[in-house]
């Protein structure tokens, strides 16, 4: 009967309860949509960073990590790459030769990282081939083809078919270089990456650097969540001659940013649920104080203090539960719809490009976040009932009965 009584008491003043529930629903919608936006943004950043830049794992010579010296190559890189390709869960392994240098046109020059790649294996590891927006990839039949970003092409006043001079140091420290013909332009969501990277055939680069070995192995997994399981197996294959790093170690700033965004989401949700709790306290205060005499009658006819407390807590929990439940349902539906259709960022996309996020965001909220919100709302609803209940129950029954309302 207490449950029935509590439920009906919630609907005793439908307008007040309705307004409270509506405020919870809209508040949660805004809060969870914001969380979904941040989650979608971070997921986009991470996905793009792994897809276009770091892949999941990279292998280097230990000395390469200190000064990116061309001489710090990985022994038997091809053989090692072949072994890693046979590891369960590995989607692709690319062997690269990378060197820092300059790219120059008649108009301008810029510092750049020159990636010597094998197009066939690279396609299984990074998504640059899919990001070509003009021209084509690094084909075997062309003479010294080169892929640069559309941003770099604009800055250097170049187009597909134009010649570009790349200069760098060879294995012996002598400055060398050659003219390459632009076979295609790529564009990733990360403007910083685009402006500082170009791709050539590994053989072309090796001819110029006089280094036949590779100094970078890049590994892409089928499922990123298997990273912790697969890393030790890859590490076993490497032995002690090279260093294996995951994307978080390669891009610690990105990892820290993702971590801080997750923390800020939790703080946002906590602050919102706390504010929502104050709303419930307010509603419960009004509801309980205007029924002081009624609680006196309940006490008079034999309802114990714990039962009255249970009644008030139940009312608060029902109110919070309905508002929280509906809020989560509406939010989940809205996030699902927008997450499917995508949210074009319009003018914001250019600015967010420096973070590597896509121009269209797909908000998403993990199920665990919805569960956490519901649990927090449940807990806060119970706490929200305690003050009004205590305020009422500390009165004597005769005092409660003497109240006019």
């Amino acid at each position, binding site marked *: *009967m207490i449950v*029935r009584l509590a439920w009906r008491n919630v609907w005793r003043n439908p307008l007040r309860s309705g307004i409270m529930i509506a405020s919870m629903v809209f508040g949660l919608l805004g809060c969870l949509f914001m969380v979904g936006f941040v989650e979608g943004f971070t997921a986009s950043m991470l996905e793009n960073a792994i897809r276009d830049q770091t892949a999941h794992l990279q292998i280097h010579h230990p000395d390469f990590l200190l000064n990116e010296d061309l001489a710090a190559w990985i022994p038997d890189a091809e053989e090692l790459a072949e072994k890693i390709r046979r590891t369960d869960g590995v989607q692709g392994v690319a062997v690269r030769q990378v060197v820092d240098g300059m790219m120059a046109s008649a108009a301008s020059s810029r510092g750049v990282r020159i990636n010597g790649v094998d197009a066939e294996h690279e396609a299984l590891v990074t998504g640059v081939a899919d990001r070509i927006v003009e021209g084509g990839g690094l084909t075997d039949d062309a003479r010294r083809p080169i892929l640069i970003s559309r941003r770099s092409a604009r800055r250097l006043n170049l187009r597909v078919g134009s010649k570009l001079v790349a200069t760098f140091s060879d294995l012996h420290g002598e400055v060398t270089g050659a003219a390459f013909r632009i076979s295609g332009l790529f564009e990733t969501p990360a403007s910083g990456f685009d402006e500082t990277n170009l791709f050539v055939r590994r053989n072309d680069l090796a001819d110029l650097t006089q280094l036949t070995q590779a100094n970078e192995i890049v590994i892409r997994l089928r499922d990123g969540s298997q990273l912790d399981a697969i890393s030790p197996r890859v590490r076993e294959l490497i032995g002690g001659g090279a260093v294996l790093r995951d994307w978080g170690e390669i891009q610690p700033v990105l990892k820290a940013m993702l971590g801080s965004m997750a923390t800020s989401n939790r703080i946002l949700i906590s602050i919102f649920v706390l504010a929502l709790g104050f709303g419930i306290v307010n509603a419960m205060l009004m509801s309980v104080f205007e029924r002081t005499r*009624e609680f006196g*009658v309940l006490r008079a*006819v034999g309802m*114990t203090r714990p039962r009255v407390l249970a009644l008030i807590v139940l009312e608060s929990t029902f109110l919070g539960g309905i508002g929280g439940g509906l809020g989560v349902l509406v939010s989940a539906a809205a996030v699902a719809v927008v997450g499917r259709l995508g949210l074009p960022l319009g003018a914001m996309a250019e600015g967010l490009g420096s973070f590597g996020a896509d121009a269209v965001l797909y908000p998403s909220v993990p199920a665990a976040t919805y569960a956490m919100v519901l649990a927090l709302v449940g807990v806060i609803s119970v706490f929200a009932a305690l003050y009004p209940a205590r305020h009422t129950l500390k009165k*004597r*029954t*005769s005092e409660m009965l003497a109240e006019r309302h």
Partner: protein
Amino acid sequence: MAIVLHDLTKIYNQDTDFPITAVDAVSLTIGAGDFVAVMGPSGSGKTTLLNMMGGIDRPTSGSVSIDEVDITGLADKDLVAFRRDNIGFIFQDFSLLPVLTAEENVEFVMQLQGHSASECARRAQELLREVGLEDRMDTVPAKLSGGQQQRVAVARALAPRPKFVLADEPTANLDAETTHGLLDLMQRMNENKGITFIFSTHDPRVIARARRVIVFEDGHVTEDRRQ
């Protein structure tokens, strides 16, 4: 079953410079099956006296014994249980739970006693039939007249099979016809079931029906007569 008040005193604002003595050293015995009206002007202390008799308020000094149980010495939890099982309450403003139907209002008190749902429903329906509301069992209080609400309140008071019923000005909000009907009902319950009724009132229609009238003024019993 007798209710024995011994030297019962209630002083409000005792720790201030202006203490108010609402009930002043009252000693009374009310026998089982009596039909008693406690009358007096507003502010005379009638409600305070009834509250202490019903264990709703605790006296400053003195004692209230019901069936030789000194309820003034009971712990809060025990007092609530004693009240629930032994005393029925009828209030001037009916004080029904507005979100429950007539039947649920009557059942509620029995459920607090721990009776089964079917037992509560059976007795609630029986009581509502007795007070003439068999066709309004599923009606919420807001859709009942004042007299009907007070009948539900009587049924609720009787539901836990109390030893006595305390009624605080039960007819104050009722018209003459409804008052007579309600008094007939309570008198019938008193005579047929031997339930003790104690009213606080200044309604002459109630006083006329009472077998014992206790006149209460300024916290004192100034007259105690049988009629």
